[in-house]
């Protein structure tokens, strides 16, 4: 096992983490800051991917597709906020779970109705395809580097938005007491629509970017949704910093676990069995990580509340 391989795996872990962050960022906004459990976040991710694929296929331009993905998912987000979510803020989390679960069904089947049951084609744009050679002789896909950059940019933007603007303050105030912030003259309803649409747009962006290297198909959102929840829970709900750290942690743990555990078991078991046991454990690893984090820090790594 060479040093180059290990460095490359760390890079992969980082990149996977950043990818998760893109998804978790929107979720943290909606869930952490607005206090809404939105299971349909994965559907918005899917909508972004489909919109990007459809537009890119029609126009031949990935970048137009990317813009379309943000627009489509933000619009879908705004629509469901106004039509459904808005009635649920004062409700129990449980009602939100049921409603957004229902939304998943509607969106998934709706997408299948529009685009059919078969996966769509979406590739990275010309300019970002192929690999570049990094210092140290590592060939690394350019597009993945681009994802890292985009993820970090989104992180910076969100830090600023939540921490540094009055908008962020108001959203957080709305989370703890919507009635009161309204009584002080803030149009919290409109604000929430905007924020929800923003979160949705980010999910759509993530879906489009990821769709270009994975598969664009119905049901693509749910596995990522679960991972994104894991990420923000590990990081601490409502904290953008937590989401970033959680995402990187999950990305690294998963990637390195998949890589190293079989090797480790190889020391004590025959190769084929070591593979099986090692990778079985690797697939449980992030859940193990989450459980351990929560057992020692029940509010997550960056969680404020005790």
């Amino acid at each position: 096992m060479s040093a180059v391989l290990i460095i490359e795996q760390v890079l992969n872990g980082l990149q996977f983490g950043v990818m998760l962050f893109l998804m978790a960022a929107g979720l943290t906004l909606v869930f952490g800051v607005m206090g809404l459990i939105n299971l349909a976040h994965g559907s918005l991710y899917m909508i972004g991917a489909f919109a990007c694929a459809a537009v890119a296929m029609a126009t031949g331009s990935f970048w137009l597709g990317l813009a379309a993905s943000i627009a489509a998912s933000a619009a879908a987000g705004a629509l469901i906020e106004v039509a459904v979510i808005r009635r649920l803020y004062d409700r129990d989390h449980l009602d939100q779970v049921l409603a957004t679960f229902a939304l998943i069904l509607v969106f998934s089947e709706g997408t299948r109705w529009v685009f059919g049951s078969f996966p769509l084609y979406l590739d990275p744009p010309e300019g970002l395809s192929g690999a570049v050679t990094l210092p140290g002789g590592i060939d690394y896909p350019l597009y993945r580097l681009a994802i890292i950059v985009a993820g970090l940019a989104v992180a910076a933007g969100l830090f600023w938005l939540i921490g540094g603007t009055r908008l962020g303050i108001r959203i957080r105030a709305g989370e703890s007491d919507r009635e009161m912030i309204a009584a002080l003259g803030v149009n919290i309803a409109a604000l929430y629509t905007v924020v929800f649409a923003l979160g949705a747009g980010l999910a759509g962006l993530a879906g489009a970017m990821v769709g270009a290297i994975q598969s664009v198909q119905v049901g693509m959102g749910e596995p990522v949704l679960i991972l994104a929840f894991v990420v923000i829970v590990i990081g601490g709900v409502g904290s953008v910093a937590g989401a970033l750290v959680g995402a990187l942690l999950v990305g690294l743990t998963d990637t390195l676990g998949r890589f190293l555990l079989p090797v480790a078991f190889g020391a004590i078991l025959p190769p084929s069995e070591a593979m099986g046991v090692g990778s079985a454990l690797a697939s449980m690893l992030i859940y193990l990580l989450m459980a351990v984090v929560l057992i020692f820090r029940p509010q997550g790594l960056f969680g404020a509340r005790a």
Partner: protein
Amino acid sequence: MSLLLLSGVTARYGRAQALFGVDLALDEGEVVALMGRNGMGKTTTIRCICRLLRHDGGRVEFAGHDLRPLPAFRAARLGLGLVPEGRRCFPNLTVVENLIAAARPGPWDLAAVEALFPRLAERRGQMASTLSGGEQQMLAIGRALMTNPRLLILDEATEGLAPVIRAEIWAAIRRLRAERQAILIVDKSLRELRALADRCVILERGATVWSGPPAALTPDLANRHLGV
């Protein structure tokens, strides 16, 4: 013309009617005390004014606008500043963030509020959830002042404050009154209210039973309606 006018207001929580006919008028620059025993409808009246509760009968007008169709934030932007019962600071925000969250321009700014409550200045970056009770009360008052309201509504705003601070608040209210700030106030300290209010309105079982200048509030009346 009155700044705030309630006539025959009725309201309910679900099936339970809480207001049965509240009449109240408050002019520009006037201080009105809203009185009554526990559970008589003072807070409910205030919730109707601030549109936190829809009234089902009667009229609620503020600055010439019928408030019935307005959502809470629009009513607030007409110039209502509320210090709610039970403080309701935003626990996940710091002191400063609480103050600026809904601030609107005007004479009351961060500096002015911190001058009024030096204790808040000391605790600027602290989360509101960990403030002491009295500190939270100061914060709630400061937060309402920062919206620079035309009508300041104080619902038990001196609850849980130390006597010295209470005295300061009364002094501040007197000063506001001198500056012709309109104020609607609920408080348990009759002594202070009598000294300060232009008019008193007494509620009993959700209806206005008496209103008039403090001087006309005889011990007999006070005993009958307020139990003192």
